[in-house]
């Protein structure tokens, strides 16, 4: 299906809004044509020194058209913009919904700076598609018919002349502009996207640029792209200028031609002289309808380019497909449900003495926390994790990231996966999380193939502290609550205490309400990781995965952290990805990987 057809299909639910906008647009221009024609008639008739009473109807009509014109215009603008914003919201939601299943596997090849341009700017470019592309041509066609009917009533040649100039302005000119403007429109979007990516780099990588004294070089690159953007924009302005100038020219020529043709007809008596002024003025007024058409086609190009990019992005097949029916065995559903009674118990227990909780010592908080979280682990679900001869590569051209990996982690036990960077440790986590799908071998959870579960159900069972934590530009509390929207402040505090983060937060002037900046840039590496750990604790899932979770911590903090986590890890299945001996001391088995293979387990 073509981009245009897909764009039209996207707004199909809004077709009545569009119809309304078309009619209001037509009537507004029609009123304007009527006003000019009647005014000219009025003074021409008056010039014949007729009785005032003979002008009464014309006088009333002129006033009516004048008022109607303004009101119709207002309504048309108001309703078409209302429709546009509804469509825009519809588009944003549509886009997010389409892109959500693709993350993160299919989005890695794009830069988020580029994604920003795509999603925000491209979607806003489509705003023009509805106001300036769809409505004007239809309304213009109606006005052309109306104007030609008026002139045709006097003489066919007049209607013919007008229709020639109207179609030159409304059809030939836009088509020529479309042909000439095709390249600049695409270039414009590309240049803007690249400049945007450069500026994102400048702002986010400023420290690196300064440290390597690349400020001048980068600035030069930005300015070169800025010049490129300007060049394309000036090229477009040149076209826009030609288009505007020709529109003005054709309007003048239409009036002149109509006049030229009408003069002999008046002299010959076929047309009454009183109508001579009416004819060129009607012609001029009707051009209002075709004026926006040249721009409409240019906008169409931009809209199609934007639409193409959006579709291209979302057309990627999702990496992971959910089964039509999820395995609803013990593993998948029992555990997430089990979190509810646990949370309830916690509230019940603390409901009465909630006032005192804030005053309680940290050790008491810890006790509350561990006892309530401990409940979950007692649910009798079999969460044995097993990899059986799993092969995997990220991309058909890439080398194997996993080359026949097999191991079993019995429910409730702790395992560590160690190995050099790039040995495949993180890939194991990516597969477990179902961010990517394996195609050879088998991963089982509670005896069932991972493919049998919905990805969401699997993830609900996993509490992960990832290597690269994404923190949202919100407060600490919001970032923590992401893991468990129902968590009480006390639960959040207890989780942070276990993650050795509470003291740090309590020391901040705004405490848990401290905003942490874009991607948590105001936090240090260690603080980020502990925040991620607190999230995992709040999530309270039966399987805990620590992916290099303590890499940014100093040895003392790390040791304290593991001691503090001891109660949380009790009876949970734990998978630690680390090379620290600290971590290894706490595990039942060590699985060593090298170049995608298990070398000892």
């Amino acid at each position: 299906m073509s981009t245009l057809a897909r764009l039209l299909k996207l707004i199909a639910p809004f077709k009545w809004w569009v119809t309304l906008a078309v009619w209001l647009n037509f009537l507004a221009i029609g009123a304007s044509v009527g006003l000019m024609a009647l005014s000219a008639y009025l003074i021409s008739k008056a010039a014949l020194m007729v009785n005032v009473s003979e002008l009464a109807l014309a006088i009333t009509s002129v006033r009516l058209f004048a008022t109607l014109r303004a009101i119709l215009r207002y309504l048309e603008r108001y309703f078409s913009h209302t429709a546009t914003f509804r469509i825009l919201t519809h588009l944003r939601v549509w886009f997010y919904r389409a892109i959500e299943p693709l993350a993160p596997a299919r989005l890695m090849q794009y830069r988020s700076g580029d994604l920003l341009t795509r999603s925000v700017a491209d979607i806003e470019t489509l705003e023009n598609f509805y106001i300036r592309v769809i409505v004007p041509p239809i309304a213009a066609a109606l006005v052309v018919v109306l104007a030609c009917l008026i002139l045709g009533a006097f003489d066919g040649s007049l209607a013919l002349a007008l229709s020639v100039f109207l179609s030159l302005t409304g059809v030939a000119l836009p088509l020529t502009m479309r042909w000439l403007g095709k390249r600049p429109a695409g270039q414009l979007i590309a240049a803007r996207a690249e400049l945007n990516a450069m500026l994102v780099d400048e702002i986010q990588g400023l420290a690196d640029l300064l440290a390597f004294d690349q400020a001048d070089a980068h600035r030069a690159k930005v300015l070169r792209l800025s010049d490129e953007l300007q060049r394309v924009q000036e090229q477009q302005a040149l076209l826009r200028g030609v288009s505007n100038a020709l529109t003005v020219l054709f309007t003048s020529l239409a009036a002149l031609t109509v006049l030229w043709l009408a003069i002999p007809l008046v002299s010959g008596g076929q047309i009454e002289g009183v109508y001579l002024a009416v004819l060129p003025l009607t012609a001029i007024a009707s051009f209002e309808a075709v004026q926006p058409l040249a721009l409409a086609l240019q906008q169409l190009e931009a809209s199609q380019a934007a639409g193409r990019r959006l579709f291209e992005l979302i057309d990627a097949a999702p990496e992971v497909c959910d089964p039509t029916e999820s395995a609803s065995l013990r593993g998948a559903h029992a555990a997430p449900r089990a979190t509810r009674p646990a949370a309830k118990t916690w509230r019940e227990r603390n409901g009465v003495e909630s006032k005192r909780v804030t005053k309680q010592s940290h050790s008491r908080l810890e006790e509350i926390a561990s006892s309530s979280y401990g409940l979950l682990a007692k649910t009798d679900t079999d969460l044995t994790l097993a990899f059986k001869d799993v092969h995997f590569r990220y991309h058909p051209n890439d080398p194997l990231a996993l080359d026949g990996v097999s191991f079993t982690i019995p429910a409730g036990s702790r395992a560590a996966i160690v190995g050099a960077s790039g040995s495949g440790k993180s890939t194991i986590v990516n597969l477990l999380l179902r961010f990517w799908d394996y195609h050879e071998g088998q991963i089982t959870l509670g005896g069932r193939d991972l493919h049998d579960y919905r990805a969401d159900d699997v993830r609900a069972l996993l509490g992960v502290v990832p290597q690269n934590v994404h923190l949202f530009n919100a407060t600490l509390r919001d970032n923590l609550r992401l893991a468990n929207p129902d968590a009480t402040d006390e639960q959040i505090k207890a989780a942070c205490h276990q993650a050795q983060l509470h003291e740090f937060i309590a020391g901040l002037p705004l405490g848990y309400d401290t905003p942490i900046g874009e991607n948590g840039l105001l936090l240090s590496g260690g603080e980020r990781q502990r925040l991620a750990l607190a999230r995992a604790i709040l999530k309270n899932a039966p399987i805990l995965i620590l992916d290099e979770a303590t890499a940014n911590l100093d040895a003392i903090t790390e040791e304290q952290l593991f001691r503090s986590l001891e109660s949380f890890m009790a009876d949970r299945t734990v998978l630690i990805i680390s090379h620290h001996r600290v971590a290894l001391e706490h595990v039942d088995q060590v699985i060593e990987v090298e170049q995608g293979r298990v070398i000892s387990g």
Partner: protein
Amino acid sequence: MTEKRLLRYNRLAHGLLSLAVVAGFLAALCVVAQAWLLSVVVNRVFILRQTLTDVLPFLFVLLPLAVLRALFVWSGDVLAQRAASRLKGSLRQDLTHHLFALGPAYTRGEHSGELVNAVVEGVEVLDEYFTAYQTARLLARLAPLLIFVVVLVLDPLTTLVLLFTGPLLVLLLALIGSSVKDIAQRRFQELSWMSAYFLDMLQGLATLKLFGRSREKIETIRAISTRYGSTTLEVLRTAFQTALVLEWGSTIATALVAVEIGLRLISGDIVFDRALAVLILTPEFFLPLRQLALKYHAGAAGRAAAERVFTILDTAPAPVGGTQPAQGRGYDHPRRAPVTRSDIRFERVSFAYDNGQRPALRDFSLHIPHGQKIALVGATGAGKTTVANLLLRFIEPNGGSITIAGIPLSEIDPATWRSQVAWVPQRPHLFYGTFADNLRLAKPQATQAEVVAAAKAAHAHEFIQHLARGYDTPIGEQGARLSGGQQQRLAIARAFLKDAPFLILDEATSHLDAESEGLIQDALDRLLRGRTALIIAHRLKLIYTADQVVVVQAGHAVQAGTHRSLLEQGGVYQQLVASYEGGGR
């Protein structure tokens, strides 16, 4: 204020804009001539019963007049765009220059999405502001005046209608327009915020998925987008109302003129050709005002964007921090000669983040003798990274002094100083480009062989060569598919390539696994040889190689000495080492 500053920001742009307005005025002159000639022709045929041949000379003048008018319209458009381009170009140039001067402390503190929005979208908004709004605004002052004078000559009585409706409309326009401004500002903020929010959601999709929250964000986006739409509509509705009043004023004025001159024609007070010319020119009197009203939201949006841009430009670089030379004595003559000896001293240096809200260093003193390796150890958040940031001049001390071979650091040209420093940060920023491009950041003119050699030394070569396109593989956003160890090995490779006499390792080995750490240890030993270095270390091996170890606690240097002497002293260091030995290697 903002408007004037913007107009005067670039003189060439201002000049081009003036020319565009002149072109618009000349086009208006053509309109007057066309209206007059048209009326004369109609009058001669209709009233005086002349034939085509009689009026042919007039028609022949009308033809080139139409062409001339079209030419003026075209040049007006082109000139206005040139003006906008110049202005945007110079603003972008100054912005990007200024961002570097403001330094990482500013760009980290701000929402970088919002900054990007101000720098890219904010500047782009000024395009329409200049080409559409400013030309319309200036023309709205000239063209109606011209028409007024012409009508005054043709029929003084009709000017009464214009005199009555014209100023009334201008007044209404001003009244409604002032309320548009505030809402437009809100719209721009909301747009910035909406962009930042959307980017945050897209970047965090993996995290949202981890917690099973990604789908519910659909509703949040719907809610925010709806709110954004209604704010925008609010702005536009005000603009539409302005347009409604103006449009009605102009159409009803046309109707009034038609009726008034119609009645006077009956009584013979006015001749037909003048009457028709006045009728045709009446809408032209209002046209520039109406066009200005339509551009009003472009004007308000432009002003709001300009204010945001000027706010960034007006933010004074915190004493130094970026590429600007230091204030004070060194301002006029920053030292550009390389400092030959990297003898570094911190004397009672204090620093606090967030305008003194978050103290990081207090009376911190440190001596790094030339050629020595100093290791900083201490708990997370003790202030070690701040020391590195101060040395790189990303931030400036609030108190105390930092000297290099006796010369205050603030008097040395930052670029000159940084050219002698190789920095291995905690998290290197990986740029849009290939692996080779990213390594060449450290030395743009490096040959392929040099790049490969540096990568080999940092043990980055192994994983890079396994990639489908080797060194020419593009790096994804934030190096998403690179492990922490791999990212850090790239940072180390950059340091190798830079080959500077002074080295700052910021937790350089914390992400590396046992195997690479061993290999990199050799490489670092080689890199460190003959260089002065500040090492922010978490691993004992790096500490052993240091000439001196400084223990940092809560922003103070609490202990200093060799590994052995500190061990004998006991205290914080002993605890640290005990846990390193228990937990590290």
